[in-house]
Structure formats: C-alpha cells, structure tokens
C-alpha cells in the first residue's frame, strides 16, 4: 500500500475536544497502510513535538477546530525547527477559514484540510507529499 512503513502522528493540540475528524483521518491513514499514532486530547505543542521526534515520524497532522490554529501551528513549527526536525511534514485539519490557508502554508504547513474534502482526496495528497 502507498503509505506502507510511513509513520504518522495525529495530534490534538490545545484544549479543543472535537476529535471526530482526527479519528476519521487516523482510521483512513491506517487503512492506507500507515502506522498511526494518535495523541488523544489536550496536548501541548511541546508534548506533540517530543512524540514526533521520539517516534521518528514522517508526518504530523494537527487537528484544530477552536480557531487557535495560527498560534498553535507557529508554536509547533518553531519547536520542530529547534529540534532539528524540520523535515517532518506538517498538515493541519479542522475548521480553518479560507483566508488563513495561505498564512498557514507560509508558516510551514504542507497542506490544510477541511471537513468537506473527501477522505480520498486528503489521503491522496498525503501520499503524494510523503512519497
């Protein structure tokens, strides 16, 4: 399968408790062959980056629906960089207004996914970027 041997961390930064999207994507990534680690709720950027580094993942997917995406993404990006782990791809999913997508990409995010995108579209984009 296309994501065989890929290690992916799905994370819920901050206090947001909406975990449906994170779990649906985690299930779909696992079905596509990836080894998926899910953090559970309420993780600090520090904790997420530590797991990403310790587990030597290829990608981190952040799920954020509380409107705090800019702050949380900036924090995760700077911590990845200071851990010399800038090669880990970062994706963001959730309730992200269109007007913020470009800013997130500029901040170092490889892809922004929203709830109305098809699962297959999301998985295909992740496959493309991780291959």
């Amino acid at each position, binding site marked *: 399968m296309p994501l065989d041997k890929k290690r992916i961390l799905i994370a819920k930064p*901050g*206090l*947001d*408790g*909406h*975990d*449906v999207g*994170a*779990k*649906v994507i*985690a*299930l*779909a990534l696992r079905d596509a062959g990836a080894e*998926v680690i*899910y*953090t*559970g*709720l*309420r993780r*600090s950027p520090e904790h997420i980056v530590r797991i990403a580094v310790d587990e030597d993942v290829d990608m981190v997917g952040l799920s954020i629906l*509380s*409107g*705090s995406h800019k*702050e*949380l993404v900036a*924090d995760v990006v700077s911590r990845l960089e200071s851990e010399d782990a800038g090669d880990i791809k970062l994706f963001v999913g959730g*309730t992200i*207004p*269109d*007007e913020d997508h470009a800013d997130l990409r500029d901040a170092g995010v490889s892809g922004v996914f*929203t*709830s*109305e995108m*098809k*699962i*297959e579209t999301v998985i295909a984009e992740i496959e493309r970027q991780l291959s």
Partner: protein
Amino acid sequence: MTDIDTRLAGKGGAPSRATNDPLARTPSGIDVPVTITPDMAGTVAIGAPGQFPFTRGIFENGYRGRLWTIRQYSGFGTAESTNARYKFLLDRGQTGLSVALDLPTQCGYDPVDPMARSEVGKVGVSLSNLAEAEILFDGIDLSGISTSFTINGTAAIVYAMYLAVADKQGVPRDKLTGTIQNDILKEYVARGTWIFPVRQSMRLIADSVLYANAETPRFNPISIAGAHVRDAGANAAEEMGYTLANGLAYVDEFKARGGDINAFAKRLSFFFYVHMDLFEEVAKFRAGRRLWAKLLRDRYGVTDEKALRFRFGVVCGGSSLTAAQPQNNIVRVGIETLAAVMGGAQSVFTCAFDEAYQIPTETSAEIALRTQQIVAHESGVARTVDPLGGSYYTEWLTDRMEEEIARIMREVDDYGGVVKAIEDGYLQTRIAERAKERKQATDSGDRPVVGVNVGTREKTETDTGEMFHQDPETVRHVTDKYERVMDGRDAAAVESALARLRAAARTDDENVMPHLVECCHAYATVGEMVAALKAEWGEFQEPIRF
C-alpha cells in the same frame, strides 16, 4: 421474524429500493415502506397530551400556554463583548440567555496558564473569576431571565459563580431559573472537556444536583445531552439511546447519594441535536419522551407524574450545516426548527448560517433568531398540541424509534453499563466508527447533502459574506483584568476557602458546593478551584482508541 419484519412484509410492503437508497431508509437505519397503512400505525398506546406516557408532549396545552424559550448559544472574547451581544439579542426578542464559555474555562485553566493562552475567548467567553461574571451579567436582572450554561467539567464551579453573582445582585436564590449542562458522561464520549476521573466526576455532579434542588428549586442542575454524541457521529436513535442510558446512570448515582427520585427527577432536563430528517427527529422526541416516562415509572417506581415529564432543549444545525453554499443553512435550520417544535421542545437554539465556520456575526445571529420567530408566529405549528400526532408515518416511526432506542440501551447494559463502556473506550470507538461511516456515505453520495455532493459548484464571492473577526487584544484585556483581580483580593481568604474545599473533597460524602460558592465569593479562580479538586481526585486518563 420479529414483529417489525412481519409488519414490513405485510400490507405496507418492503422497501422498494436498494438499501443504500436514502429514500428507503432513515439515517438511523430504519427501513421505511412506501406506504404505511392504518393497521401498521399506532400499535402502542400514545395517551393524551400532558398525560402518561407523554408521547404527545408533557403539557396538555402544548405551546398555547407558553411558547418555547428562544435561547441562542452565544459568547466570545471578553465578558464585556459578550455582555453587549446579550443585550443585542435580548433587544431583538430573545427570551433566555445561553452562555458559551471558552475552552480554558471549560477545562479548568486560568487565562494566564500556558495551556490556555492560545484559546482565551476563542469559542466562548473567558470567565475565570467572579469579577468577570459581574461584568458578563451587568445590567441584566437575573431574577427576570433564565440562563443556560453549556458547561460540564467545571459546571459545579460555574454554577457556584452564578449563585455568587446573584447574591451580589441581591437576587434571592429561589428566584433563579436556568440550566447548567453538568453532564460529564457524554464529555468522555464526545466533546472532551472532562477533567476528573469518571467516578469522582459523578460525585461532583451529585453534589451539585442535590445542593441545587435544595438551594435553587427552579433551576435545572443537569441537562443530559445527546447533542454532542450526535454531532460526533451517532445517529438519532443512538443519540437518544445513549442519552437515556446516561440519564439512568445519573438517577442511580443521585439515589445512591440519598436523593429522592420523585423530587430530583422533576429537575432533570435533556438536550439534543435536531438534524435534517424531519419525521425521524419528531419520532425520536416522541419515542424518547415515552420511553423515559415508562422507565422511571416501571423500573424506578416514580409516582409523581411531574417527575415523569421529559423536558428537553434542542440545538438546530451543527454538523448538518455545510460550509459550502452557506446561505442554504438558513433553510436547513428552518426545517429543523419545525421538527423541534413538532417534537415538543421546551427551548430551541438555532445555529446561524455561518456557524459551520465561524462565530456568527450580528447579521447571521439575527437571522437565526428571526427563524424561530417565523416558525412561532407565522407557521401556525404552535397552534395545536402535537400536530403530527396520529399521522400513520409519525406513529409508525415513533414505535420503530422506541424499539431501536430500547435496543441500543440494552446493548450498553449488556456491555456492563455506561460507566464501564466509557472507561474502556467502547462508546468512543463506536462513535468514531459511525463518524467514519457518515463521512464515507457523504463522500460517496449515499448520504445526499446539497452543496456538498448534490448541486455542487465552485465557491463564489457571495458565498463567503461577512466575516467575523476576533478582537486581537482579547487575550491582553483578559489577562490584564485577571492580574488586577489577583492583586486586589484577600489572599488569605482565598487560601482558607480553597483549603476547606480540598478538605471537603477528601471526604466521601461532604457536599463541596457550599465551599465552591465561598471560593467564588473570595474571587478564587476556576483554575485554582480545579487544581484543589485535582489534588484530591486526580485526572481522567483518556483511553486512546480509534
């Protein structure tokens, strides 16, 4: 064959189309015949409106006596900005307040906590101490309005703060009306604002409910909510089934703590989503109301008729709304409001059309409120009680939903009860699977959604409309105020109030509520009170399953 199969194979005929045809099957998976004949409907006694088993509603006179409460969930940024929005909504005809709190307040962190900073004021108002509550309700007479709080992990604390602010306004406690959600069980399954382990949380809820029954007899100290489980993926029957199962778990807890069921059951209330399948939603409410009354009477021996009344509020919208072609959501919410009212709801919150992607603007918030007024004053559905009662489809589907809800409750019972199902992560996994199924059905088109898989087109500029922008200074305003309150309060009084709270929490049976009220009066913060309780009770360890 079961009873249902027999009836399906009988006069009405089996569904005429393939099973993945959305016209042949309700979202809860009930196969619906093309024709429902009189002999298929009404096989269960429905009773009269206002009488057991309350299929037709809990009041004899429906909405003629009193219209439902128009209660728009609202709150963002600072207490000052939310207070202004409340005054705007009240001015436009809203009849009850519904407070949206930010995540730090919901999860028990003060705004200065590193875990909180990026979330201050984002999804609701920041309410870390009594000074903020005084601003939030400034100029609003709490003896004249009912206030609902969507608060769970810190519900007992926010309720204590409401009592403290009422004390400061000079409002007698027996005049206070409103609701705190205070339903922690569903937080572990969906929504996620848990703090303490399940059993300690149940103790805190029992403390607050028993205290509230005595102290504020007109206040609903719990609103057992299916809405969030529904929005997370459950279907309508599961929403009702899990909620009634949770309701019985609370009843058991309150009884074990010495509560009198004929008394506390009168103040239990419920909260649900209304999604788009109009008849299934109406049937869900009629069936749930009937089943709850039967369970309390037959299993728990409740004798007071008032304690059998299933009172519920609803929210229309949520995940049934789409970010694509958002103005279509106005129509969706209109249909859902009809379902809520024909199902007999006591209070209705209608989401704004832009709520799928942002905090509503004043314009969209007003349209949502007007939608309810149009249903209330123009549509005529409030004219007679239970207007769909007696319709072949409504009665047939109500019976099917009752069977399905009862089956789901048995499944949870067979697993070992809700508390075990939650601690093990069983229910969480079920909901995640359902969410995946619903997403796949939407992607494939098996679940038609206009703008998403039917009637799709490229986004246009008029789709986006007016954007809501948070005040970038919110965090600074909130933390500055916080520091001023910390500097101005009597530190020794705070410390001793927190110490007494901790001592009460350490016992098995001393009610912590009086101590929480005392802490609030001393301007102790939500974060401090939660820290005191955590020190005694620990934290919930989330089972990581997907």
